[in-house]
């Protein structure tokens, strides 16, 4: 660049910056208020909308959502055991609308015209966007489990991984488990929403049985995986609370010091974990006979909770925002889809490398994308992102909390976890478990407020 070119370039740069500064981020050339449309009013869509309106009131934000109320999935296993009620997980959109001026269209999206930048809804509306944020959560691959489909899940073999009628069905089924009966919990293969969640659920169910005069009942965890997020802390807790013994095949996965905290119990415990290499993968289910078929054989149960493998939300699959992996590829810095311009996919549906699919991840991605979209609409360069995730879980009873917590950065175009301790140490103190349980309960409220209020 010659001196003259540089001077001209700087002049241009200065001029555009001056315009930006003097008009508080809005360019003098904008003929109309930019319109950002958000599909999905879950954690990602709600947090994004709130934070974009906080960052710039000059941007119009419209959420298109099927349901008038949101049932929060995080912590919803506590409804199954009656620790909290459906009302406790029900969230209205009042604050987003009244306090932050977010527009709502309660309707179903049936298509997106990426060229015309227009969303079509079931009731026949066409909604134009300057930027579109798609946050459709997850859907389930029922085909992967022989004998399981949506109807069976709704009536007999609930996954309850999206809260609703299936959560209530599980609560009824739990009460009907006979003395000495068997519950099967089958966590999905990676990647899936809320990595510690299925194991937390197994502990909550065992705790409920223990407290309700049924300590001889069993919770069998059939798993396609050999390890899971928070496994050392969770297995220790099961060992302490429910007489759990480490399966022989798993001993090689842990250090001598870790194993020393979990000597085998003489009696079989309330929870048993059949991991992947022991044949824990679920192949199918016979809902009439209440039999689960795994690689290790067939098991009869009184209550079966199979959480099927996950894919991106249905809308992402239907509109072609997902690739052959079943998830949505995005440019990590802005979460703009690599398949459609001016469309950003956030939350569980997106491919986010080391970031788990979780509420906190969706919330963190949403805030980053709010700042990036604000910058892009103002003609500015998006900023350097940083993300965080924290998942709290109860190991079983309400005094025993654990967590996973990470900070993530953009490294060579991928989202990478920073290399620090992620869990409570295996020799954590009783007070640390208690504190974590207290934080877990407080977090439900604090997090919900940050997303929705």
């Amino acid at each position, binding site marked *: 660049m010659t001196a003259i070119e540089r001077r001209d370039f700087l002049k241009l*740069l200065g001029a555009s910056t001056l315009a930006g500064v003097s008009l508080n981020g809005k360019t003098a050339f904008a003929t109309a208020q930019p319109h950002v449309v958000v599909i999905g009013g879950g954690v990602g869509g709600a947090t994004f909308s709130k934070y974009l309106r906080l960052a710039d009131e000059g941007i119009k934000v419209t959420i298109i959502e099927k349901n008038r109320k949101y049932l929060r999935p995080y912590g919803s296993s506590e409804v199954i055991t009656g620790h909290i009620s459906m009302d406790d997980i029900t969230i209205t959109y009042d604050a987003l609308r009244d306090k932050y001026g977010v527009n709502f269209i309660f309707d179903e999206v049936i298509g997106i015209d990426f060229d015309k930048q227009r969303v079509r809804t079931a009731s026949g509306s066409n909604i134009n966007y300057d930027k579109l944020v798609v946050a459709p959560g997850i859907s389930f691959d029922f085909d992967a489990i022989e004998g399981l489909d949506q109807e069976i899940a709704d009536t007999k073999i609930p996954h309850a991984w999206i809260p609703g009628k299936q959560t209530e069905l599980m609560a009824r089924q739990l009460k009907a488990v006979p003395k000495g009966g068997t519950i099967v919990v089958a966590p999905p293969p990676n990647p899936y929403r809320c990595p510690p969640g299925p194991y937390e659920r197994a502990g909550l169910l065992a705790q409920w049985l223990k407290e309700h005069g049924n300590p001889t009942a069993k919770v069998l965890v059939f798993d396609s995986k050999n390890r899971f997020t928070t496994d050392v802390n969770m297995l220790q807790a099961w060992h302490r609370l429910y007489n759990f013994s480490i399966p022989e095949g798993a001993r090689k996965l842990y250090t001598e010091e870790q194993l020393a905290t979990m000597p085998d119990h003489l009696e079989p415990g309330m929870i048993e974990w059949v991991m992947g290499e022991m044949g824990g993968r679920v192949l199918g289910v016979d809902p009439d006979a209440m039999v689960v078929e795994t690689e290790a054989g067939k098991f009869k149960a009184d209550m079966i909770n199979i959480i099927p493998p996950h894919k991106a939300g249905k809308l992402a699959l239907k509109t072609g925002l997902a690739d052959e992996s079943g998830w949505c590829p995005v440019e990590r810095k802005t979460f703009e889809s690599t398949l459609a311009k001016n469309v950003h996919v956030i939350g569980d549906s997106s491919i986010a490398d080391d970031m788990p699919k979780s509420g906190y991840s969706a919330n963190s991605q949403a*805030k980053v994308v709010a700042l990036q979209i604000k910058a892009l609409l103002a003609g500015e360069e998006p900023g350097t992102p940083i993300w965080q995730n924290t998942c709290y879980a109860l190991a079983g009873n309400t005094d025993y909390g654990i967590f996973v917590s990470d900070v993530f950065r953009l490294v060579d175009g991928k989202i990478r976890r920073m290399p620090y301790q992620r869990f409570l140490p295996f020799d954590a103190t009783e007070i640390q478990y208690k504190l974590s349980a207290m934080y877990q309960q407080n977090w439900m409220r604090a997090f919900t407020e940050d997303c929705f209020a």
Partner: protein
Amino acid sequence: MNKVSKALLIVIGLTGLGTAQAGKVSGEMAAQTCAGCHGTHGYIENSAFMPLAGMSEEHFISAMKAFADGSRPGTLMGPIAMAFSDEEIRAMAEYFAQFPKERGGQQ
């Protein structure tokens, strides 16, 4: 040099700084990762979590350093504090300090 071009130069200076620091995480970007537990802009009531809105910069920085070096015991704040640079911690401190302690209050 007339006043206009002087003003222009100041703006260019700021823009230049922004470009040079393209790899830097802004205070807002870093601070908003805290809000999932500590509340939007650090406002939180009746909670186990520490409110961060209106916290003095010195207090925020010393708390994060104490978590990071282990001198302040905790559960997950130690590793989280370690993952942020000194510069980022300072930027987050400045960000939270700009808010009044009470929501909607005057500073």
